[in-house]
């Protein structure tokens, strides 16, 4: 890629595709997230970051090195990372005496911080400690939020939106009913958020809809709400602005003529017209050993006249 100051020129097709994938689009793909470690991280925080990375596997980037960043004071470093890796969600983990076991969930709009919520981990059960089998990577989880605080309190409402954004998987048009295996359950109670992750077992019930049994799986967190940074209302509104209608993709090579007939175009390979078979004439069929010149000539003539 070379720069002309205002225009990037891609020198190869691969780099052109890369640049185009990073352009703003009408319907966006799944958001990727970056998981960053702060200046000082405890064992709990490191394990927690690894578990969340495992949950979000294909669309997440885990930064292994420690970064001395203070998101609430100065978010330029985070914005730079986001621009480099094209991630709009981030999870920043740190640990110090004043704020032990700190996780900051955040999201970006146009590579500037939109919302940030600081949650402290009070209790954490890791994936490794729970010895049951887990569901495959990349399954779209069922999300359940419980608690009237998520409805009444403005901060909790934003947090609910942020957690939905963070944990909901790719946008799909259809889902396999037997594949609904993973459920993430968030409960809000007295300023604390309890996050549990279960594996869904579908049992037989009398009718078509199965009966649910849950099995403990995966990381479980007890969060306590600490600081937050919420976007101003107008910025929030701008971020939600959707572009005007998306046209459905047109199928190429199909056209309709005036009579309504559907036409397409075929590119034929080269045909050997000598070996072209037109009509089968039983009488002209070659018999074993017998083939006079006349019959051969007649056979050659008959298809030609038919053409």
């Amino acid at each position, binding site marked *: 890629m070379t720069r002309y100051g205002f225009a990037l020129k891609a020198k190869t097709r691969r780099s052109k595709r890369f640049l185009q994938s990073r352009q703003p689009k009408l319907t966006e793909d799944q958001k990727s997230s970056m998981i960053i470690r702060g200046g000082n991280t405890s064992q709990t925080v490191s394990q927690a970051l690894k578990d969340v990375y495992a949950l979000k596997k294909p669309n997440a980037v885990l930064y292994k090195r420690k970064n001395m960043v203070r998101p609430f004071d100065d978010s330029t470093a985070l914005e730079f990372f986001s621009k480099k890796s094209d991630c709009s969600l981030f999870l920043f983990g740190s640990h110090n005496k004043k704020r032990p076991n700190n996780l900051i969930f955040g999201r970006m709009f146009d590579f500037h911080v939109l919302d940030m919520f600081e949650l402290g981990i009070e209790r954490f059960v890791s994936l490794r400690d729970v010895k049951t089998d887990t569901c495959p990577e990349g399954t779209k989880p069922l999300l359940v939020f419980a608690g009237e605080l998520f409805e009444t309190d403005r901060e909790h409402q934003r947090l609910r939106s942020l957690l939905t954004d963070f944990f909901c998987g790719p946008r799909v048009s259809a889902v396999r009913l037997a594949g609904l295996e993973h459920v993430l359950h968030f409960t809000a109670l007295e300023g604390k958020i*309890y996050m549990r992750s279960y594996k869904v077992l579908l049992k037989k019930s009398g009718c078509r809809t199965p*009966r649910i049994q849950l099995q403990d799986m995966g990381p479980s967190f007890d969060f306590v709400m600490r600081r937050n940074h919420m976007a101003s209302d107008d910025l929030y509104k701008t971020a939600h602005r959707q572009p005007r209608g998306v046209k459905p993709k047109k199928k190429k090579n199909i056209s309709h003529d005036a009579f309504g007939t559907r036409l397409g175009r075929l590119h034929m390979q080269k045909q050997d017209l000598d070996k072209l078979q037109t009509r089968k004439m039983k009488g002209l069929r070659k018999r074993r050993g017998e083939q006079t010149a006349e019959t051969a000539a007649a056979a050659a003539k008959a298809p030609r006249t038919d053409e």
Partner: protein
Amino acid sequence: MWGRKPRCVIRTKMASCSFEDVLAKAERDEAEKLKGITVSKELDLEFDPGNLLAFDKNRIDTREFKDCKREDFLRSLARDNTQLLINEMWKLPTERVEEVIVAKLPDPTTLLPREKPAPKPKPPTKWEQFAKLKGIQKKKKTNLVWDEVHKEWRRRWGYKRAKDDTKEWLIEVPENADPNEDQFNKRNKAKKERVARNEYNRLKNIARAQKIKVPGMGLAPTPRQSKAELAQAVNVAKISTASVGKFQDNLPKEKTPKNTGRKRKFQPLIGDFSSEKQKQLDLLKVMDSKKPRLDVTKAVNKQMREEDMESRHKNKKDFGKKGRRGKMSGKGKGKAGGKGKGPKGKGRKPQMKQGKR
């Protein structure tokens, strides 16, 4: 007939009993079936099947929560909520895709913020504006073109295209062209020029779309130009008229530069010829003389330089190279001496002048 009635009566009685029984039994069966999947809640949950999301607004009893059985409470709550969500999912229309039952999801109802702002529609390029003005429609072209030479379908442009100009081994020289011109080279140059012009126009289109100011003709494409560059551009623009800037008025305090043009001085054609005569006689004298001309100052400077180099090499502590250097210095000395004294001849510019060039 008398015998039949009681039978009829009995039958109807039995039938009525059995109807009621059957209905009751059916209801009980249904209830039994749905018992597995029904969950009673005070408030209904809010569902968003497009996102596989459910939201339970019910109050959570803190007393139950404070017991040691917190995990169990949470699990049962989760189980109930998930059951309701699954019930909702099973109500969606399903279809069979490759032996798998799949439920079609509706559009998600929860609004989530976008990652990047929506793309703005690009302003039309110069060609697009012109085409719109003239009413030129875009003609749909086929992907493949029949190539007579190779007798196959080939792509219209790109690698292994149908009519490839560059692969020709013979180019006819047109009638009005110079016979000594290299036609292949001409073709290559024309292509390069086309590519460069295309690129330039593309960048201009982008700059126009993003409303970036680009410096005009005659200036370097950097955002900041120096004073000299700007002055030169102004002067060039001024003389770019049909009468070579003769009738262009100056700005209030602007002065016309008088020293433009190439610096060449010629002697006047008419007038006193004595200086010219003298010059030509001197020239003849130099050509005639046997002795070469010697510029003493130049020779002395050269000699001094050679001596300096020599002393520098001698002071170096490299033993290996000393011998070579010694030889070189000997050569150099010899040369310098030769140059200083030997014939230099007229017209041969001494090496010292190369720096100036």
